[in-house]
């Protein structure tokens, strides 16, 4: 995509082992998934915008198609957009550059991983062309996912492919960071984004196999007649939920950590400042999250009839997440302190993320408290909570990343004006969509409901939420078209337009060629990527 690019050659891209091209392929795939899942979101919002069936003639059709859209929306956004966007695209392109490496440790395994990712996306999309589209929500709870006429197998195989891609990535990047750092680069000189990727991949490596096992058992129960989850034959209905959340709670940190990692980079660069209390952020914050991530999953089963002692116990462990997350917040917000702050587009996204992070994180606290959750669980309140912290916060951090590194990846500048209009549409739109959901959630609007004839008083707010979603749709269109147009026609950018001190900006051209650096990188013992005062 560079200015002086040679003729485009598709097979060169498909068979590439260059981590930067692999990163771009991850980006294209995950943005494609984001687009399709986004269209589903608009359909869902339109269906809910008025009482009664809006996009169908009868209730049964409305319910069935709504469930299929919602399934794809959730599964694709998490598994095919956020996780690959953060740990696939961003880590692939920038982690080797940040540590001064020429590539990852196992370039060919890296290529395999992106192929598996693309296969996963294709299998997920095939779900729409087969007769019985999966309709099991991204959580896929049995017995419904086993009894349904929908093709649960497409869900299972998507999880397998994407999970396998992620495990390969995890091994690859952990080895890369351990063995391929530039000579002289100690552990306390790593970029925050590098640490966030390391910790996210540690979590993936430990927990993905559990999810893979859980969905494989679904497959066996549904198609091979086993009874893992069937109580009438000695199985256990709750086993799946435990396994699923044993992975999927940590998975929210696989999204949260790299998203925060990106924000540290952007905030530090546009404040020209060092990270506030780096060590507390890394060792207390990120590793603290890893440590606690596996002991809190029952907060997703508060209403499932788990024994009382474990519901109270996991209330305490869930509340304790506030310790490492608090440290992360302090070092992130603290990086603004005594900075020299400028407000270019990536920074606009980063600042909005601070806001989204506060709302999303704080609304997690009432949910952690078992008694409060017995009312809030499975309502629009949950829906709004995890959209703030995961849906929008992490998505905006991906956008911040693309804009921040756009000059590095393309050698060109994006269109700031177009981007800014897109930003405001996005930011206003998401708040118009999701703030009302907190309110109607507290008042009892159930989640995953296309129909709410028993609560007609919620119609106005649902309509408002649809308007918000349309604003976001417009904002996203502007944003993505800005990227595409500017990648080919933008103003040429210098190698380090933001005057960052991080290696990917200081030590190589934009975009970096094969091998990344013109000569091998070495760093001084007192070098850090946030060394603005020198």
């Amino acid at each position: 995509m560079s200015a002086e690019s040679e003729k485009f050659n598709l097979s060169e891209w498909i068979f590439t082992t260059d981590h930067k091209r692999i990163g771009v392929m991850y980006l294209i795939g995950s943005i494609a998934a984001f687009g399709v899942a986004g269209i589903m979101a608009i359909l869902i919002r339109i269906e809910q915008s008025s009482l009664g069936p809006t996009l169908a003639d009868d209730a049964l059709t409305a319910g069935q198609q709504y469930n299929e859209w919602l399934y794809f929306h959730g599964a694709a956004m998490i598994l095919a957009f956020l996780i690959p966007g953060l740990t696939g695209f961003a880590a692939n392109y920038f982690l080797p550059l940040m540590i001064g490496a020429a590539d990852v440790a196992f370039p060919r395994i890296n290529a395999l991983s992106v192929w598996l990712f693309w296969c996963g996306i294709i299998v997920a999309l095939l779900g729409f062309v087969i007769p019985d589209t999966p309709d099991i929500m991204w959580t896929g709870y049995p017995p419904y996912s086993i009894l349904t006429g929908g093709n649960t197998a497409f869900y299972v195989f998507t999880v397998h492919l994407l999970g396998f891609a992620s495990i390969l990535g995890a091994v690859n990047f952990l080895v890369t960071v351990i063995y391929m750092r530039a000579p002289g680069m100690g552990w306390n000189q790593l970029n925050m984004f590098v640490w966030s990727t390391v910790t996210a991949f540690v979590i993936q490596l430990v927990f993905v196999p559990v999810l893979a096992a859980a969905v494989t058992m679904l497959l066996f129960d549904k198609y091979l007649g086993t009874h893992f989850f069937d109580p009438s034959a000695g199985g256990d209905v709750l086993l799946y939920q435990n396994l699923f959340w044993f992975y999927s709670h940590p998975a929210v940190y696989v999204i949260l950590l790299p998203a925060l990692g990106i924000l540290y980079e952007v905030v530090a660069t546009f404040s020209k400042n060092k990270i506030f209390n780096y060590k507390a952020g890394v060792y207390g914050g990120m590793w603290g999250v890893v440590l606690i991530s596996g002991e809190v999953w029952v907060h997703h089963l508060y209403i499932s009839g788990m024994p009382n002692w474990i519901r109270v116990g996991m209330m305490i462990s869930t509340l304790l997440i506030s310790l490492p997350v608090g440290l992360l917040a302090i070092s992130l917000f603290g990086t603004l302190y005594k900075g020299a702050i400028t407000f270019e587009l990536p920074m606009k996204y980063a600042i909005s993320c601070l806001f989204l992070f506060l709302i999303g994180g704080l609304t997690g606290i009432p949910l952690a408290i078992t008694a409060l959750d017995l009312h809030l669980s499975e309502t629009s309140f949950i829906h709004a909570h995890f959209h703030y912290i995961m849906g929008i916060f992490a998505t905006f951090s991906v956008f911040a990343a693309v804009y921040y590194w756009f000059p590095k990846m393309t050698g060109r500048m994006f269109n700031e004006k177009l981007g800014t209009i897109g930003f405001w549409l996005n930011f206003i739109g998401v708040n118009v969509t999701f703030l009302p959901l907190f309110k109607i959630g507290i008042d009892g609007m159930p989640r995953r409901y296309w129909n709410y004839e028993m609560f007609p008083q919620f119609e106005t707010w649902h309509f408002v939420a649809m308007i918000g979603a349309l604003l976001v749709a417009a904002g996203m269109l502007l944003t993505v078209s800005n990227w595409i147009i500017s990648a080919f026609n933008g103003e040429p950018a210098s190698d380090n337009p933001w005057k960052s001190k991080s290696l990917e900006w200081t030590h190589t051209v934009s975009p970096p060629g094969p091998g990344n650096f013109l000569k091998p990188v070495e760093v001084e013992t007192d070098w850090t990527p946030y060394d603005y005062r020198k």
Partner: protein
Amino acid sequence: MKKMLATLTGIALVVSSAIVMASESSDTIKDPAEEWQHLWTEVLVDLYILGGIFGALAIYWLFKYRAKDPDAVGDGPNLSRAQVWAWAIVPCVLFLADDLYLGASGWSAWNVYRNVPENAMEVKVTGSMWNWEFEYEDGTTSTYDVDGDEGEKGDGLVVPVGTPVALRMTSTDVIHSFGLTKYRVKEDLMPGRVTYIWFYPKEEAKSWVTCTEFCGASHARMYAPVKAIPQAKFENWLAKRAKEEAEE
């Protein structure tokens, strides 16, 4: 220091409330919905304080430290070893105190949610795709048909005002969940397992139970009215229902 105090008070409160609860007679029944409201308000204050501190600081700093000229660089503090530890430990202690305080309040509310009063009326609830069935202690049942003609839908769950209602719940097929917004309770119904919750209708009211665990195409239409009516009316209704059922 305040938080520490609050925590210690919180712990003391739990211990004392446990003692009080053990010695209390059943005529002072605590209502889960009220406990919920109380705790919610408490937590909201906490959230506003935390959000206020971080939000206000961020806004102030963004304003105060905007770059004065294009080449300006930041001047963030170089923390000494002791400061590094202090900036990790002090916030952790504060957060921990807050957590324990909330945990203590949460625990005492939880005890109210899970300890069914002795004089509760028991109703068996069975969920299936996609309707609710309620069975009273005398074996009488009641349901609700969302597609029925007006006046023929059925009555749903009818309960007497002033009596705590305990629900013993199970499912015949997939997982459902009994979500009763008005009384702030919710719990899943599962095949092969029995779960329970209770609520306390203190005045005449009509509300809705909605299914709150995804269960397929008509999940969003799995609802039924919950009517709390005076004791005498309730007894009449139950007798009438019993007779209807005998005739069916």
